[in-house]
């Protein structure tokens, strides 16, 4: 015990006990299984014969060994594309056997290798030295040459990328399994319009007309899989990666345009103290995004800050599919954002609690898919444990009544939206003044107006 006491005086041990170096703990247990064990939440070194300096030296050695890779890896080698095990690997006839992750898998320095152009053969060199045109359309561009589940140029002929509902929500029923498929949804389904993104970002934040709209959200030289290298798995605390970079930070310096969400000050709990993680699918004990019991957003990227780089009350974003500009909003005053819910929320569903209403702030990803969805407005197919189908917004609701289709979404958090739900009017909408019977809210005959006529981000 005296040795343990001495060890506890070491400046390293408190760090270990606080969990600052989980890899050291794992390493010690792995390298010297008899040397270390966990006990009641503390990390004890048990080996009475060993002297403190020797142990410290061993700890430092293990630390060096474990940190060696990280210390010499920059953002690219830590990215999904640059990973030496599962990174980019073009596998076509005639293409040299390069290390996985090497730049040549995407960039052809001379638009040829050994005097010939490896597949895909375009005949002319492509911008940014890419092996295919950087961007052509919503479903045709460089990224999709690999990010598809069949005929991919990536070794194995396939790259699986699951939806947010699948990965964060645990909704493994989702059959959407690649990015090309996600971006192929067309009206009445929806996908993030790459043409519109391209139009919007051109001229902003050092993006040009040659920029790939995928790069509005992703730094291809830094982005990580989330979960990392587990495309058919849901996220777990151990498999997290960080896929996005803020468009407003865009830079051609890979160090300057870092990942967003990987640092503690880039989490949802840093944006707001009012974040409550929704449940995972069919669960009341595990939460998004990683299936843990963490509920305060400390494990979730601050997607509000991320998304509002573009989607805010300043930018005008034209939507080709909607035929209009997107509604602008200020998440700092939005009811689902930092704004206070004036009408309260007496019928809120778990894990949200009525007593905390007015404090809750949602993340964009609580309701929206980032890439595409078989619902309108990129609405997720699974929200707060429940499945969602919103094909038109004016279809039948769960109670079979017209125009109540949105209840499939809203009803996963708000109770009382059905016919027998005793829907409570907001205090600032006196029912008589609005003339429910006259059709301002209700169309008469028992039908409601479509929820979306009044409820959208402006509120």
């Amino acid at each position, binding site marked *: 015990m005296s040795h343990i006491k001495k060890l506890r005086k070491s400046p390293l041990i408190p760090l270990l006990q606080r969990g600052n170096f989980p890899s050291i703990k794992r390493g010690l247990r792995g390298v010297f299984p008899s040397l270390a064990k966990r006990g009641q939440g503390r990390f004890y070194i048990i080996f009475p014969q060993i002297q403190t300096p020797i142990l410290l030296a061993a700890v430092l050695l293990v630390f060096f060994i474990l940190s060696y890779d990280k210390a010499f*890896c*920059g953002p690219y080698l830590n990215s999904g594309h640059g990973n030496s095990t599962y990174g980019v690997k073009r596998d076509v006839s005639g293409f040299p056997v*390069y290390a996985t992750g*090497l*730049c040549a898998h995407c960039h052809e320095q001379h638009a040829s290798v050994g*005097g010939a152009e490896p597949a895909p053969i375009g005949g002319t060199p492509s*911008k940014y*030295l890419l092996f295919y045109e950087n961007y052509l359309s919503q479903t045709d561009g460089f990224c999709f040459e690999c990010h598809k589940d069949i005929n991919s140029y990536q070794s194995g002929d396939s790259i699986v990328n699951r939806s947010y509902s699948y990965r964060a929500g645990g909704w493994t029923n989702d059959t959407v399994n690649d990015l090309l498929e996600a971006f192929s949804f067309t009206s009445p389904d929806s996908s993030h319009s790459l043409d519109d993104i391209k139009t919007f970002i051109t001229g902003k934040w050092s993006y040009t007309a040659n920029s790939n709209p995928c790069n509005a959200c992703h730094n291809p030289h830094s982005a990580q899989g989330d979960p990392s290298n587990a495309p058919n798995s849901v996220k777990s605390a151990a498999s997290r990666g960080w896929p996005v970079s803020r468009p407003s930070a865009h830079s051609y*310096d890979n160090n300057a345009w870092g990942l967003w969400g990987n640092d503690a000050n880039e989490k949802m709990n840093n944006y707001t103290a009012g974040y409550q993680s929704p449940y995972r699918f069919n669960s009341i004990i595990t939460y998004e995004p990683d299936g843990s019991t963490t509920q305060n957003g400390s494990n979730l990227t601050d997607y509000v800050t991320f998304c509002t780089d573009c989607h805010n009350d300043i930018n005008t974003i034209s939507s080709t599919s909607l035929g209009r500009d997107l509604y602008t909003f200020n998440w700092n005053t939005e009811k689902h954002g930092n704004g206070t819910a004036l009408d309260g929320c007496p019928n809120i569903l778990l894990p949200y609690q009525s007593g905390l209403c007015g404090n809750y702030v949602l993340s964009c990803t609580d309701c929206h898919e980032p890439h595409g969805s078989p619902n309108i407005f990129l609405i997720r197919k699974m929200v707060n444990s429940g499945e969602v189908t919103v094909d038109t917004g004016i279809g039948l609701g769960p109670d079979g009544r017209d125009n109540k289709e949105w209840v499939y979404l809203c009803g996963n958090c708000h109770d009382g939206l059905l016919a027998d739900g005793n829907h409570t009017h907001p205090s600032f909408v006196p029912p008589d003044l609005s003339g429910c019977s006259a059709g301002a809210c209700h169309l008469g005959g028992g039908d409601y107006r479509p929820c979306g006529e009044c409820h959208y981000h402006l509120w």
Partner: protein
Amino acid sequence: MVKGYITRLFNPANPILFCISALSILLSFSEAQSMVTSGNCSDCHTMHNSQDGEPTAYQLNSSYSGFEANYFSNEFLLISDCTGCHTSTGNSTIVNNVPVVFNTGAFNNPLAGGNFNYVRTDDANGHNVTGIKQQDAALGITPPGGSAMSSQLTCAGEYGCHGNRNAGKNDYTAMEGAHHEDDTAGITGTSAGLSYRFLKGIHGKEDSNWEQDNTNTSHNEYKGLTASSSNKESISYLCAVCHGNFHTWEGGASEVGTQSPWLRHPTDIELKSTDEYASYTTYSMVAPVARPDPGSVADTTTVTPGTDVIMCLSCHRAHASPYYKMLRWDYKNTDISTALSGCNICHTSKN
């Protein structure tokens, strides 16, 4: 009479005499022969290709393992050809102040251009120069990024790099007088002898030991140009004579582009002074840069982004390297960090 004597010496019908004679020839050429402009004439020339009844001229043998007597006189009374003088069977890469570009066996400290030894083992590692390696099995006589030639690459002349490339197909003619020219007044490019490494028209500053010591405190300074013009003085332009589609200004807008986004990796373009490129400030022997004025570089150890120039030799060796595609580092290494190590000299944030 002399001819008759030599014939007897090397008459295979007299095997003992033949072996003794051949051995004496081989031993006498076990190291590269002296080739200096200030040396004795006989270091390079032979009046009659005969000394004591034996031929003085020599050449690489057909198996590239050493030298053999050359019974036929060379032009300009030379005792050997390019490869004969610049090849060594020893392990040194500078012999009697002659730069060795081809060591037939193991060697140390290859020079700036690399060593043709590497192309002997793999076509992809170097230029297939006549006299050292037969034509490239995959490429034939069509240089990547260029048009098919009508003859295999040679050291000098119309199908070569050195000497006057407009002086016909003959190595000797292309190099005529080059070794004798005094370039102490400077590299002007006006003749082969007054050009960087006898590459007629090309400018640069020659390191006295051909970068054998491989240090950034003393190294070649290559000429780079950064605009489309009639200036043909850059080292990359020389490459573009054959590999034109790979050169920014020779390939032009349709092949390389003239600004970002590039279609191919640019050469003869300033290393940007912004973003990740601004961090390349210490001259790297792995991925060196060219200079707009190589004759007046104040500090050879530094790189100035925004001024210094990306060139073909930033990535490639001119002659041959131990690596795929003559690269200066092992781009094909299975370890990704090693494979990227050269790229990361300039692309400092892609590590």
